[in-house]
């Protein structure tokens, strides 16, 4: 029993949830107990399928009818919820307890003004409140969550709001009824990095200024570090660890927590090979006898296979559901896998991909506005940027899926942007792509064998040749041969992405384009894929162009990094150099916006860029970033800064203030200060 239960806002005791599916009863939550004290900041962390969302939705009665819920007790402010009437639940939602959902696009009604939606909770529960009072309330709430110009904004509709502004509006809605507790389910996952940082600030302000308990449900340990005092780690429908946030990062008491921490790539340094968790989480909470984690646990003993460990309190505020928690606590904080921050840069080979003066417009949308780039054999170039910056368009232009408006793309010395038909198809074999979504990028009707064989069939390989190559490839991406006759739906996300990689490697391309290959994956799986790519790169001499918004992954895999903003490169250089001394304000914003890796780095001082990237159909004059940049002045509006070298190692930056270190250092990126190199 968690302590402080008597004074708790929300209590769940032995909560279980299962769903009736076509393949039988699936247990999703298995005996979870928690109590949230008033004003407490709690994070529930876990990978997809761990039951972290379902367990909270179940307390609110928000699950579909196919869910079977049982519990000894579910109480909100002492009032039992489990068998409460729907009308009473509806009354409580919004006044006593509020939710903030992941996707602000779908959690707002497109046909209502923001003002009315924000104040709706009040209007519904208290019809006597007049229109003008509601309007005032909406304006005040919007102002509180940092929506500029609330006077105008209350009259607007959701489509007139950017993603970040919408999420602010959703938070304002949640606050309207002055609830005692707010549950935020992945509140920043659908947002861009710089916008994510803004929302983190909003939530943190709310935690500080209001007496409201917050429960942040997330898969992102960075967000946990930013927003939680107390953390519940969930795995396979159970709470496996409960701990104050600092201990989570320094002294994890469960092997799963530990593995999770080690599998995160870090923006603070390159740690060589990432630790991974072998295998997959069980499909149902009762699928594995004994400890549900034991098949993936490196410390598992025979006891773990038969006896399910109970959540055991071993010191105040700390509990672990592991038979060997004491051993785990005594392990070294970071694993022995830690390696030098940066592998020695490899000898650059010849240029395999050359992009020259590339532009691409879609009608009024100027997606790519003049990019020059070279990728060499054996090198990994990380391409960073937020949504809409044109990084995916650039990848598609490079593969020849799109035709440039102007400029050239050369693969292995051969220009492909002017080729057509068969010649283009032949030339494409030199450049292959791994897509973001491993589900949609594999034809769901084909077997894995057929999927991997396809590029070779197209290239005219003979059948025996294809067979041999398939077995090579499937081994190379670390999948067992029996997967070849499965269909994508039978594979997990990570396995699917391995298939996508195998397919891209089939023709032994000179250039491998990776478009957000890990962003749809869970942390532990992401680590496996990142490691795989790392291995593959070491073994082949293809050039990798790795497109992602995740700086942690980027820093981990890249030799060089290019940062894109509104269809232009704003900074490019060797990985360590860019991270060590970012010279473009936008690069600094990106690095600063990445959630802290440890609560000790949590800071309200760091630089958060305001606003969100402008619409590529309406790009400001001069420097594209100037409207969000605290350093911007008239010269930034007048002309577009070119990429100019700042070092003799190829570090180039497109900013007028690239050498003004004092001003740049004012834009804090956590512990990072540029020193003269």
């Amino acid at each position, binding site marked *: 029993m968690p302590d402080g239960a008597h004074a708790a806002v929300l209590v769940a005791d032995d909560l279980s949830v299962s769903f009736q599916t076509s393949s039988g009863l699936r247990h999703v939550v298995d005996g979870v107990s928690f109590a949230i004290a008033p004003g407490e900041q709690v994070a529930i962390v876990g990978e997809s399928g761990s039951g972290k969302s379902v367990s909270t939705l179940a307390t609110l009665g928000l699950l579909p009818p196919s869910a079977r819920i049982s519990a000894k007790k579910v109480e909100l402010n002492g009032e039992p919820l489990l068998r409460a009437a729907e009308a009473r639940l509806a009354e409580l939602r919004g006044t006593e307890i509020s939710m903030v959902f992941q996707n602000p696009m779908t959690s707002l009604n497109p046909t209502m003004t923001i003002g009315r939606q924000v104040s709706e909770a009040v209007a519904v529960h208290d019809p006597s409140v007049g229109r003008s009072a509601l309007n005032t309330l909406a304006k005040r709430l919007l102002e509180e969550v940092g929506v500029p110009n609330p006077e105008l904004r209350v009259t607007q509709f959701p489509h007139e709001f950017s993603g970040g502004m919408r999420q602010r509006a959703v938070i304002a809605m949640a606050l309207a009824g002055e609830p005692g507790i707010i549950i935020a389910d992945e509140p920043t996952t659908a947002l861009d990095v710089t916008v994510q940082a803004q929302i983190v600030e909003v939530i943190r302000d709310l935690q500080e200024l209001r007496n409201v308990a917050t429960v942040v449900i997330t898969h992102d340990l960075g967000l946990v570090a930013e927003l939680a005092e107390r953390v519940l780690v969930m795995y396979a429908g159970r709470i496996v660890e409960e701990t104050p946030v600092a201990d989570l990062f320094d002294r994890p008491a469960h092997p799963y927590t530990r593995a999770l921490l080690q599998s995160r790539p870090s923006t603070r340094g390159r740690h060589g090979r990432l630790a991974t968790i072998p295998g997959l989480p069980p499909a149902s909470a009762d699928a594995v006898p004994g400890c549900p984690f034991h098949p993936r646990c490196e410390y598992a003993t025979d006891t773990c296979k038969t006896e399910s460990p109970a959540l055991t309190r071993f010191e105040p505020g700390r509990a672990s559901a592991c038979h060997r928690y004491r051993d785990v606590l005594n392990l070294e904080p970071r694993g022995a896998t830690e390696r030098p921050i940066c592998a020695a840069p490899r000898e650059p080979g010849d240029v395999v991909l050359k992009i020259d003066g590339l532009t691409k417009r879609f009608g009024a949308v100027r997606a790519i506005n003049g990019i020059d780039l070279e990728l060499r054999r054996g090198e990994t170039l990380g391409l960073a940027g937020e949504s809409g910056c044109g990084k995916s368009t650039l990848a598609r232009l490079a593969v020849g*899926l799109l035709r440039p408006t102007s400029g050239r793309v050369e693969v292995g010395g051969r220009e492909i942007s002017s080729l057509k038909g068969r010649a283009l198809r032949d030339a494409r074999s030199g450049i292959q792509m791994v897509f*973001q979504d491993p589900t949609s*990028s594999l034809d769901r*009707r084909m077997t894995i064998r057929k999927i991997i064989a396809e590029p070779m069939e197209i290239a005219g390989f003979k059948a025996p040749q294809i067979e041999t190559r398939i077995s090579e490839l499937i081994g190379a991406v670390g999948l067992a041969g029996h997967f070849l006759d499965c269909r994508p*739906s039978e594979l997990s996300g990570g396995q699917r992405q391995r298939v996508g990689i195998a397919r891209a490697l089939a023709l032994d391309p000179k250039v491998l384009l990776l478009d957000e290959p890990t962003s749809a994956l869970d942390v532990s799986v992401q680590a496996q894929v990142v490691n795989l790519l790392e291995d593959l790169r070491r073994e082949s001499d293809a050039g990798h162009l790795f497109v992602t918004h995740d700086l942690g992954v980027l820093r981990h895999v890249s030799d060089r990094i290019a940062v894109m903003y509104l269809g232009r490169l704003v900074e490019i250089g060797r990985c360590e150099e860019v991270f060590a001394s970012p010279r473009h304000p936008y690069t600094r914003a990106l690095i600063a916006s990445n959630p802290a890796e440890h609560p000790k780095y949590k800071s309200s001082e760091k630089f958060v860029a305001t606003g969100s990237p402008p619409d590529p159909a309406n790009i400001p004059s001069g420097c594209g970033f100037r409207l969000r940049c605290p350093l911007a002045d008239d010269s930034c509006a007048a002309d577009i800064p070119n990429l100019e070298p700042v070092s003799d190692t190829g570090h180039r930056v497109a900013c007028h203030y690239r050498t003004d270190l004092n001003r740049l250092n004012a834009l804090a990126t956590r512990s990072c200060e540029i020193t003269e190199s």
Partner: protein
Amino acid sequence: MEGFVALWMHRGGRVGILLLALAILVAVFAPLLTPYGPHEQIRGHELMGMSWEHPFGTDLLGRDIYTRTLYGARVSLIAGSLSVLLGAVLGTFMGITAGYLGSWIDAAMMRLADAISAFPAILLGAAVVAVLGPGFMQVAIAIAIAQSPQFARLARAITLVESKQEYVEAAEAMGASRTRVMVKHLLPNAMGPLVVQCSLSVGIAILLETGLSFLGLGVQPPTPSWGQMLADALRFIEIIPAYAVLPGLALTVVLVGVNLIADAMRDKLDPQHVAQKGA
């Protein structure tokens, strides 16, 4: 097989399967179910009403109406499925090409589909028969043409959705030709909803075949078809009112069966349902 079980578990689907199975059994085992041949003219038994020998009477030439109805199931079922198959192939080709290649091909294909569907199906059928002459295959072709726009629109809609999927881009990126993308990727992924559409169309096709035969444009005599028999029944309705009963009932049974199966398939094979299951 899995699909069949799913249909069987559906209440309407099960009734539909039973009704259609009845019709198929009757069509296959017609010779065992009647002492008469479908073309057998019994002298002196012309235009008889209901009797022990001929429970549903005889036609002008002394042929047993019950027997001819049994054999008529063959025509209706084969014409129904064959024409839908043809129509599905034609329409799917149009739709996928239009949806994937876009631009003027899309415009041309879809205007063609609009033009075809602007005509009432029966009129279109009559026009096709006028060009190709009457007969079983001609009728099937006529019905196929009349039904192709539905398949074309559906296939195009699916193609428009599917071609936004990354696997299509992936295939293009690995150098797949347009034909390959259409045949190997878009077509298999459009199959589910197209099969549902097929099952919906079979009923309409059977009705169209009946309509065309009713007008004398369908299957050639002496092959019995329900449409022809209903047309005859109209002539003799004053003398033997029972004439229309059996062919009409048979048509109803098959149509109800096919439509129940179609509904069940739509419930089970609904693209969203499949997507949920696949995810």
